[in-house]
């Protein structure tokens, strides 16, 4: 009996594990697409108001271009912190504190970062 249970647990967890692996590629693409939508949406991140991003229409130039993000921000946490509360890193920053002031959720910010890493 107990062997049966452990077998089924193993099988289930195996299935689960296989599922996550299989799901990774499309999930990643979905997260990137969601992140891009948030970043470009005027009511969302509206990052284009201040940053140019590849293929983004009529960007502003208050902030630096968001390019080569993998190379420039190998540490994901640093990127997260910049978006969560830029004034923590630069008290005079004009970038809105997206996380701290609840403009974006943590999940939103993570999706935006997934997208930024494709730039």
């Amino acid at each position, binding site marked *: 009996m107990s062997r049966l249970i452990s077998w089924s647990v193993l099988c289930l967890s195996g299935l689960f594990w296989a599922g996550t692996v299989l799901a990774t590629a499309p999930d990643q693409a979905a997260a990137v697409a969601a992140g891009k939508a948030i970043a470009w949406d005027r009511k969302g991140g509206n990052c284009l108001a201040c940053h140019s991003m590849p293929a983004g229409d*009529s960007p*502003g130039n*208050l902030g630096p271009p968001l390019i080569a993000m993998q190379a420039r921000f190998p540490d994901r946490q640093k990127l997260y912190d910049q978006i969560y509360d830029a004034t923590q890193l630069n008290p*005079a920053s*004009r970038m809105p*504190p997206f996380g701290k*002031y609840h403009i974006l959720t943590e999940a939103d910010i993570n999706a935006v970062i997934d997208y930024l890493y494709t730039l």
Partner: protein
Amino acid sequence: MIRFFAIPGLILLSLGSAMAADRQASDTTPAEDIATYREYFQQRFPDVSRQQYADGVYAIDAISRENWEAIEEFPPYEPMIAVGETLWQTPFANGKTYTDCFGTSPAQRKHYPHWDAASQQVITLPLAINQCRVRNGEKPLKYKKGRMADLLAYLSYASRGQLIDVKIPDAAALKAYNAGKSIYFARRGQLNFSCASCHMQSAGQRVRTDILSPALGHTSGWPVYRSKWGELGTLHRRFTGCMKQMRARPYKAQSVELRNLEYFLTHMSNGIQYNGPAARK
């Protein structure tokens, strides 16, 4: 959500350095402030003369300036000047007119805003117009557009060329000035901007396709015919619009707060000529 109650002008000279939360608006005098702001914009836009700042963003962007000059050849606000003139001359129900309050000349712009020691407040031209109406048994006009804006268009047109010369006569006036200054530099709203974030720190830079105009000269050209509005609007209409962009709860037009803000912001432009009404994108 107001943090840093006051961020002084001097800090703008060293924008990279930390904004000191412990500094107060009263740390620098109005005279020092003017010198600081002029110097700041002078360094930023060395080719722009003081008077050119009266033209807002068109002082610093040659491309939009060309468009604007074409618009100003057939000014969209011209009909409103005529409407305002009629309003100015039309007697109230009691037979009196605005001239009984203001004197015969419509060239009134240079007297406002000013500190009124008797009532201990900043008097702006729109406020004075409504005080005159109420004293004569008339209803006050709405402050953001319509007949008030038309009247202001006429008075401003008649006052073109007058120098901005706002005075801070005493300690109480200085308090109002400092209150306005604090509002200008305080971060507020969900986006955590201050007026200075956009019109000082970012003047000349683009938010999407909008080029941000410098704070200097900001109060000289009002009222403004704005294409986006499709009509004439007052300075306080613009103030509330910018506060909404900051996702902040706007102060009411002609509230004590916005009059103090106007007092501070107009003082900054001392020495620039009034040139309203004007056209804007």
